[in-house]
């Protein structure tokens, strides 16, 4: 299943991804979400509680009018709305998975 090498140069933070982006979560890296409204350890736990764990498929479905913020992300079987600054912590491989 996880045939995407971690060293792939096609990794992208979800906070920077365009609408229509499909990928798979490689890691949660809270250090990349410096502007987040929460301390790193708390942000990480909240992201996991909403289903952002390594290996989950993600797709960026919608974004807001101003600055493309917030974003609506499909994570496995749920749709989660969050701001881009918090989504910076979610590192995904681009290309996505073939179901």
């Amino acid at each position: 299943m996880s045939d995407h090498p971690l060293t792939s140069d096609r990794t992208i933070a979800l906070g920077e991804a365009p609408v229509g982006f499909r990928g798979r979560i490689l890691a949660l890296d809270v250090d990349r979400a410096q502007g987040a409204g929460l301390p790193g350890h708390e942000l990480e736990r909240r992201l996991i509680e909403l289903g952002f764990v390594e290996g989950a498929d993600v797709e960026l479905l919608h974004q807001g009018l101003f600055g493309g913020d917030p974003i609506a992300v499909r994570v496995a079987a749920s749709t989660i709305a969050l701001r881009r600054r918090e989504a910076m912590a979610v590192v995904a491989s681009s290309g996505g998975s073939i179901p």
Partner: protein
Amino acid sequence: MNGVVDLAPPPAGTAGPLSSLSAPVVALVGNPNCGKTALFNALTGSRQKVANYPGVTVEKKTGQLTTPAGRAVRVVDLPGTYSLRARSPDEEITRDVVLGRLASDVSPDLIVCVADASNLRLALRLVLELKRVGRPVLLSLNMMDIARKRGIEIDLEKLASALGVPVVSSIAVRRGGTDELLAGLDRALGRDVTGGPSDWHAPDARELRRAQREADRLLRLVVQNEGRLDPGTARADAILLHPVAGIVVLLAILFVVFQAVFAWARPLMDLISEVFTWFGALVGAAPLPEILRSFLKDGVIAGVGSVVVFLPQIVILFFFILLLEDLGYMARAAFLMDKIMGGAGLHGRAFIPLLSSFACAIPGIMATRVIDDRRDRLTTILVAPLMTCSARIPVYTLIISAFVPDREVWGFAGLQGLVMFGLYASGILAALGVSFVAKRLFWRSEAGEPFMLELPDYKIPQLKSLALGIWARALAFLKRAGTTILSMMILIWVLASFPMAPQGATEPAIDYSFAAMIGHAIEPLTRPLGFNWQINVALIPGMAAREVAVGALGTIYSIDGGESAAEKIGQVLAGQWSLATALALLAWYVFAPQCASTLAVIRRETGSWKWMAVTFFYMLALAYAAALLVFQVAAAFGAS
């Protein structure tokens, strides 16, 4: 036999019949949007009540049901959560009830974890966490019909044995849809088990990750065809979450809601106030001692009437809020408004409460319950009374028509309309400013709540659930706000009625009252605002309801003619006041905490006198500053 599950001591001082105290307690726990409330409604029907947990703003919903085996069960509907880790006051309640930590409450004998069968992934992780609490757990896969329709197949038996907890399916919205769950309750409560000791602790990221992986493994094992986006939801969101079209639709919806609260409620409100006026007249004509008659008519009946008159607005507003919530649209509205509201330090969900505050701050403040985060909710409550409510309109209209010339400016706009618009705009700008400051003043030390929420699939709302929700809130409003507001009304009546005018008095009776004494006493304070003592006196009954000030001014200036006297009052005022005074009074009315009912509702909704006092004093300070500025500037420009 009931088993020996009732280890918890009966709660002291809890309201309710004695027999229900020994009944086993079942707590409903689940992710937000799992259909938990609909299930709660289906289980308990009208045998439920909404109250507040002591000291917090969190709604406490309890109800009763009887199982097929004849067992009386108390059901507690707990706030939705993804984890027992408690990130908000709502989730703390869920955690504390589940763990049996809440001293004033009973601890549950059974935890029913409610899960959306079409969205199991996050719920399964919660079940794994609940299992560690050491109480019996039952998993109810709700909305099974929707899951089946979407081709999702779940092997319940396999899931039950893999999880080690009983699993049943339920369809809250269908007759007989809770039969399996009820039978499951009987089986679970009939068993003589109390669960083991709790080894729950707040999980760290590593444990959460491991639990989610385990949940994902179970999911692959027992569920087929999960994960695809609901096609209907995808189609709807293509428009409703479109950056431009979505906002247009949202504004259209808000316009309809505003119209409804503002206009549709009007005939009903008129009817209610006519009934109370008629009733008051009836009492007024009764052969009673003068003082008792005045107390009943002007104190009690007018007081009760002034509360009940808001009921149509509250019912209509909650109809829309619950409808949008049940549809799954509320989360989308928050998504669309997040950036705009966030700039002022408000939550995206604050939009609807603030909008309805244009009709009346009371339903608006009650509607802040849609905001989960306590700080965001308090900020919204603080600024809601700054929105120009409909009760200000009679006062604005009176003063504007008496003092602002009716002429066109810039070729198209009426000057009077412009002033009115300016008053509305001042309120909005002040609200944005205050929320901006409050965010920094009160919660500076705490990190800002990030915007992270699930966008549920759209669902067709159920009329019964909707009706029950509205009913519970209407009842709660009448019961809780009624007592506080009524006592304030009576206080205001006392101030305006005592001491009574002496025999053969020539001045209006109110001139001899405490209200007049206060009016004279604070005259030195209000002189810099250009207010004379007559205005001060009118402001006191104006506390009952802002528009009452118009009638009170009529009384003080001895203008008779009842309801239709507004024009006459205007003429008299134009002769008595300077333009600067009139403008200062307008500025005062934009900001002043001139509504006892609103303050009482803030007290009830926040559960503290502190926030009522904060609201009162900051609004008073703003009003004083604004009126002072307006009067001094206007007077300097020769408008006196």
